Each structure stands twice: as C-alpha cells, then as structure tokens.
C-alpha cells in the first residue's frame, strides 16, 4: 500500500482531542482534501466522540454529517482515529475496526490510526501513533516508513504549545456539539490558530 502523510492540522487536533478528554476513549475521522491516487494526504480531522463509542446512533449521524460537509468542501473521509481510555492498550477495539471497515468500503486506501497514550508525554520525541491499513480484508500494521509527518518537530512543538496554553479547551467534538449546537465541530478557530503558529515558510500545512 502507498504512503500516508499526516498534516500538522490533523495531528494537532487529534492530539488536543486526546488531551481534552484524558480519562475517556475518544475517536474521530481523518479527512483529505487532495485528489485520490498516489499518497494519502490526511489534511484535516473531525473529532467525534468521547463517550459511548460503540453505540450506533451518534456515530451514524456524525458520519453522515461529516460526509455531507466533505462533499460541500471538496474533502473526503479517508480514515479513522481512536485513543483508548486505558493507556496501556492501544490496540484497535471492535468498534474501531467496524467503523474503519465502513470507511474502507468507500475509500480503498483508508487508514486506521490509534493514538498511543503511553507515548504522549512531552519527553517522547516520536509521533505517538500506530497506523493500520487494509490488506486482504484485515487491518494490518502499516510499515512505519510509509508514514510521513512533514515538519514533525514543528508540529510537535505546536501541539505542546497549544496544550500548555489551554487551547485544547476550545476543541469541539461532535459530542460537545450535540450538547450545545452553537459549537462548531469543524473547529475553524483552532484551524486558524494552528496555521498562525505554523512557520510562514511552510505553505502546505
């Protein structure tokens, strides 16, 4: 399978999502605004839930809503991420596999990304992610060398900085949106802040 690139914006929002709900399992969708073919560029993510991940109604609703938004904004759903509440276990749960399967039905090169909570402390220099791809109807570990995070040090710094300054409190996931529909699950404000913090030289973040 091909390369997968993870953008700063996608990584930072996933990271902040996990930081906002450290005691819960969280999940979300990975999006791409690039055309199909070649490497999969994950350019954005939508944080979904922090409670009752295996229950169907809200997940279905969120998938539909995000899908509609994607079709209006020239993006597509290319993957799924999850972080388990239990830090010692970062393996995909049955519900993660189910949702990832659903996504793979619409997009062959879909990815399943698990955040490894045990590697999220500041002293860890490597991205705390484990990625899976679909091979022969099973989700298998992706070769690490096929996963790219451009400007990793900068991305890491931005994520850390935003967490320190409490920006994760501004992150809105779909659950939060349902509690208060005035909140924006596309997180435009955070996107802007991330873009501002990213170095001006790097136009493609």
């Amino acid at each position, binding site marked *: 399978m091909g390369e997968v690139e993870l953008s700063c914006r996608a990584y930072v929002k996933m990271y902040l999502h996990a930081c906002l709900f450290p005691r819960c399992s969280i999940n979300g969708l990975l999006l791409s605004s690039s055309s199909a073919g070649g490497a999969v560029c994950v350019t954005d993510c939508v944080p979904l839930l922090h409670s009752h991940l295996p229950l169907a109604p809200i997940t279905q609703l969120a998938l539909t809503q995000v899908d509609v938004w994607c079709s209006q904004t020239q993006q597509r759903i290319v993957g799924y991420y999850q972080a388990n509440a239990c830090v010692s276990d970062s393996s995909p749960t*049955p519900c993660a596999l189910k949702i990832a399967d659903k996504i793979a039905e619409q997009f062959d090169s879909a990815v399943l990304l698990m955040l490894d909570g045990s590697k999220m402390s500041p002293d860890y220099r490597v991205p705390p992610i484990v990625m899976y791809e679909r091979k022969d109807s099973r989700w298998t570990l992706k070769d690490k060398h096929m996963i790219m995070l451009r400007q990793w040090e900068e991305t890491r710094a931005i994520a850390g900085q935003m967490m320190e300054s409490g920006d994760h409190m501004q992150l809105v996931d779909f659950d939060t949106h349902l509690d208060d529909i005035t909140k924006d699950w596309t997180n435009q404000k955070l996107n802007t802040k991330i873009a501002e913090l990213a170095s001006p030289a790097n136009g493609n973040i």
Partner: protein
Amino acid sequence: MASVSEMYDVGWEEMRDKLRKWREDNFRNSEQIVDVGEELISEHGSKLGDDIWIIYEQVMIAALDCSRDDLALTCLQELRKQFPDSHRVKRLSGMRLEALERYDEANKHYDAILQEDPTNTAARKRKISILKAQGKSTEAIRELNEYLEQFVGDQEAWHELSELYINEHDYGKAAFCLEELMMTNPHNHLYCEQYAEVKYTQGGLENLELSRKYFAQALRLNNRNMRALFGLYMSASHIAASPKVSAKVKKDNMKYASWAASQINRAYKSLKRFVKHLCVTNAINYIHFSNRI
C-alpha cells in the same frame, strides 16, 4: 502567575462555595479544583474551620487526577495526622497508590479495610476500579455484579456496569442496567436517551421501535436533548424504510421522522451562523450510512 482570586475577582468564601458545589454535583473538573483548592488551603486555610478536612479530601483526589502527587501527598498527610485510624483516609492512601500504578499495594490497603469492615462499599468499588484500570473488564464486570447483588440501590454502580457492558458490546445486559436506572430515576432524560441508543445499536425492528419510544420519552423529559431528537429522527426513518412494516406503521413513523427533522432544522436555523452542512435535509442523505455500524 496571577492567583485565582485575582483572575476571577473572587473572595475566599466564593472559592469555598464553588468547591462545595462541585463536591455536591460530583464534577470531575480536577484542574479547576486543584487551582481553587490549592490557593484556598494555602492562603485561607485558617478561616475554613472544619470544612478544611473535606476540602483536603476533595483537593487530594483532584490532585491525583492531575498527576500532582506533591499536592496529593500534602493533603493526605494532613488528613492522616487528623484522622489516624480512619478507613476513609486509608481509602485515600489506596487511591494514591492506584495513581502511582502500585496496584498490588493499593489492593492490600483495601483488603485491610474490608477485613475490619466487610460492608465498606468504597473499598470494594476501588478494587473494581483497579480491575478496570488494568483492562480486566471481565473480572470487573463479575465483581460489580456481585457487588450489586448486595447493594442493589447503588446508582453509580449500575451506571458503571452499563458502561462496562457497552464497551464489551453486551448491549442486552447494558440495557438491563439502564432499565434499573430508569425505574429509580424516571425523570432522568439521560438514562432514557442512553437506553434508546443501546436499543438502536442492538438493531432489529422491535428494538428500533423501543428505541424510538425512548428517544421520544427523553424528549418529553427534556425537549432540548439534541441526541434524543436526532435519535427519534433516525429510528423513525429506519422503521419507515423497513419492508416489514405495515402501511400504517410506515406512515406514522414518517410523520415522526418529519416532525423531528423540522425541529432539528428549526434549531439549526436559529443559530446566528446558519451552516448548511448541519441541516438534516432528507432521509436519502442518511440512508447512505444506514447499515448498522
């Protein structure tokens, strides 16, 4: 760094009252509790009277939640000095060991409490929490079931059990727990709505109809529950789309779905910033993902 009282322009009494409110409502806003509590204790400890002990306990637990072992230990030591033989304080010692992931030692603490007092529910629940933290869901479920046989009125335990079952995809048993909760809390819209979600997830026509009924009930109890509103829309749409229902049932459910859709659209239209993607336009959008996940 500015103090809490400076930043929010509050006096110590307000800080104390806020802590009490969070205690009573059982909020887990640990970072806030640590900020307010730490300042309250260090700057105004002498004014708190006997309240200080319960505040030490509250702040200690919040400190553990934020990995502030320094603060947790300080609070614990004060409590130990004041209440040397207390089981309640011993439980806090156990919790600190849990936070440090020293589970075997923590279990010893709780076993010692239970040795002296077999009815100590707090110690039993901590032991179950340890199983959960270690990822031993099956054991946690078994222990919690045994606990509930004895302490059948413990709402918190029933809810915890429903969560454990949901994570194990045992929706039938999760539903049972939620039924217990709904019986004892008939006005709680959240339990109704969670029950409806579980039924919906179980799938099948009968469960869908139940789910629709309970989403509707949740709405009756709280007409601003958006999950219930969306749930009503989705369950009614599914039933209407099923080839197994009579024409009447189909018609009724289409009515419910369309009512729910109009309520949803109204809610979103009233937002200052009307965002197209948030609108539920018609069932076709939704049938796209209609296969049960």
